[in-house]
């Protein structure tokens, strides 16, 4: 019954949106042209291409280009989902027709789902129809039929691209109050999509079907992430609470500074209280610490695998064992100064922090994994040379254990900050959530991570 009611509300929104879109010639005419006209143009192109290539005995080239044209035929109508989504999300905000909807018993999720489905259905149907026309034309003209795998992959890619564009449009629309602003922000969607199509074209041309499956998995994960983000962002508070598009640096700095220093009602806490508060933040990092720990394990395993696949020549491996020369180990440098040892890890942390901010933590995590891949690689060389991995680990452990803890905390805090859009805190706006998480990262960096790295560097320089 509850599910029925949920669906009733969602379908009410969908039907209204579809009816509205069907009455807008600016949407209908281009979609019709792309569905009914464009496939025939691509058919014509494909036939010319096959004829031309066959004359020079390059049938293979033509055959590899045909699937790409199928992808293009599917993509063009799908790209309209972005236009519809921006119009339905930001356009409503701009025309002030969203507020009456928000005053109804609709839940945020029902409204979100209704609008997403409505933005997706017409372009996707047009895409499928266009692809059908294109394939039918090819079948009749040159007798070309796609393999079931290729057809499935193309359909999945087209669908996922549509979902990503719509989900991303929702995220963009939360950051602006005008369609003009949304169109400016749309380049953040269009540019990656253009790059993606180029990547898909390459994979199709080279017949990299396995690569396409990986791409589909990647796109599916991106779609899930963006939808999750959208469901958090698309709420009454964010939609009506943000009426301006300006950056307020003063307010941002104050919010961050209060989070960092613990300043409340104009008063700073004592150093001891600040430290207690900082340490009490650690348990909240459990989940992100787990993800970070998995990256360490994954990095070590990958490093080990690469070490086996691309082993060093035996004479280099032997150097590790015969001389015990730890300077060969990428993560160790016994002749280094204290400052170098201390700042080495700090550089890694800052790089992870910077790259992660723009990529929802993805590049940050990859950077974080690099040293562990290197360590895994080195340990594998030790093992291949007949040495004891355990001894090698013991050699690293006095300061390595402390570094591990410090990097784990920093990595977890950075990750939590970077993915805050996906799993936001309650009772705060998006900007507040972002700034609070940033303040927590720097607080832990100053209060816990840097002192630990200092201790590790001290041990590394004096004991090794």
């Amino acid at each position, binding site marked *: 019954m509850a599910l029925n009611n949920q669906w*009733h*509300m969602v379908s*009410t929104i969908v039907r*209204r949106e579809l*009816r*509205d879109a069907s*009455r*807008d010639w600016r949407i209908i005419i281009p979609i019709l042209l792309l569905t009914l006209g464009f496939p025939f143009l691509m058919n014509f192109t494909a036939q010319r291409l096959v004829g031309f290539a066959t004359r020079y005995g390059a049938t293979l080239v033509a055959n590899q280009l045909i699937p790409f044209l199928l992808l293009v035929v599917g993509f063009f109508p799908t790209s309209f989902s972005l236009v519809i989504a921006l119009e339905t999300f930001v356009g409503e905000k701009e*025309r*002030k*027709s*969203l*507020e*009456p*909807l*928000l*005053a*109804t*018993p*609709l*839940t945020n999720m029902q409204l979100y789902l209704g609008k997403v489905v409505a933005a997706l259905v017409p372009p996707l149907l047009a895409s499928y129809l266009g692809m059908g026309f294109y394939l039918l034309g090819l079948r009749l003209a040159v007798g070309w039929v796609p393999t079931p795998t290729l057809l499935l992959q193309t359909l999945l890619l087209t669908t996922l691209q549509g979902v990503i564009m719509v989900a991303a449009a929702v995220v963009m629309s939360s950051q602006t109050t005008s369609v003009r602003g949304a169109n400016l922000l749309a380049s953040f969607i269009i540019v990656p999509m253009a790059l993606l199509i180029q990547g898909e074209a390459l994979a199709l041309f080279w017949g990299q079907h396995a690569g396409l499956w990986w791409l589909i998995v990647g796109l599916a994960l991106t779609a899930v992430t963006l939808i999750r983000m959208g469901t958090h962002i698309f709420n*009454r*508070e964010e939609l*009506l*609470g*943000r009426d301006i598009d300006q950056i*307020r640096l003063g*307010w941002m700095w*104050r*919010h961050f500074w209060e989070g960092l220093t613990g300043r409340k009602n104009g008063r700073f806490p004592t150093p001891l209280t600040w430290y207690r508060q900082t340490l009490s933040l650690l348990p909240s990092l459990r989940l992100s610490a787990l993800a970070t720990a998995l990256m360490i394990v994954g990095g070590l395993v990958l490093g080990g695998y690469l070490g086996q696949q691309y082993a060093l020549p035996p004479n280099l491996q032997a150097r590790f064992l015969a001389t015990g020369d730890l300077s060969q180990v990428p993560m160790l440098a016994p002749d280094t100064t204290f400052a170098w040892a201390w700042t080495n890890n700090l550089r890694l942390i800052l790089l992870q922090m910077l790259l992660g901010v723009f990529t929802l933590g993805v590049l940050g995590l990859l950077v974080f994994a690099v040293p562990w891949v290197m360590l895994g690689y080195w340990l594998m060389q030790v093992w291949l040379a007949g040495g004891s991995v355990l001894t090698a680990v013991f050699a690293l452990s006095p300061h390595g254990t402390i570094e591990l803890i410090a990097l784990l905390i920093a990595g977890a805090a950075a990750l939590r900050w970077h993915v805050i859009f996906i799993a936001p805190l309650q*009772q705060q*706006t998006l*900007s*507040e959530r972002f700034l609070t998480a940033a303040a927590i990262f720097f607080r832990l960096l100053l209060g816990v991570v840097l002192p630990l790295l200092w201790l590790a560097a001290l041990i590394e320089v004096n004991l090794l």
Partner: protein
Amino acid sequence: MIEAVGLGKDFEGFTAVYDLNLNVPAGQLLALLGPNGAGKTTTVRMLGAILRPTQGTARVNGYDVVAQAQQVRHAIGMLTEQPGLYLRMTGLEYLIFFGRLYGLPDGETRRRGVALFERFAMPGEEKRRLGEYSKGMQQKVGLIRAMLHDPAVLLLDEPTSAMDPHSARLVRDAIRGLRDDKRTIILCTHNLAEAEALADRIAIVKKGTIVAQGTTRELKAALLGDPLLKLQLDRPLNGQLDGLVQVEQVAGNVVYYRTAVPETTNPQLIRHLTEQGVGVISLVEIERSLEEVYLQVVSEVG
């Protein structure tokens, strides 16, 4: 029916509303007055469970606006500052869409919609596209949308803005009818005459909080002093009113005086003057508009 205690709302460091207290019993109409940006719309949005308060609590029709937001939204009808209609839909399609969101059967919505269109002097117009309506008609459709599900509480933000005098009167009559029908109403308006004519109580909001609240009479008394009366006699006075009323001014045979309770004081005064042999030509209360009160409050506080 509508109760707010210490209600407040911060937007990323900007305080839109703070320490706002109000109580509107069932069947009463409270007018919220205040300059642009005073916090009226934010208050209404919080009471309508659209925005979540950052301080304080509020209950509407017995439901908490945070914990029972869905129930609150079911119980209220809201007219937003701009009607925000879907201009490609016809009036009836639009109402049926909203009726479905409130769980009304289409037939029932159609029946109510047609009746409300007639009530607001727009018979037959429900079949036309909303984009073809005048601004005033669009505002009326917004009000019809708010009334469609027969809510116990109405939150009306500028219901008569952009309307011609005839339409505005129709809407005011409808609001009066709703109030007489024991609906609880909050009305945000810049139209002071409208507020005075419709409201049981008035609250003046400035810089995010209520700075004056009460009936029109209470507000006038509190801010402009007791009612001022003009008494015209058949001859100049000679100290006959000493001790009876607070005389403000005497100009020949015209006397201006104040009294907190005219209904008691005036009969006594006339009786006294008659006994003294002084003839009363006229006695009128000097009209003091809500505008005076409003301007005084808005310019005075903070």
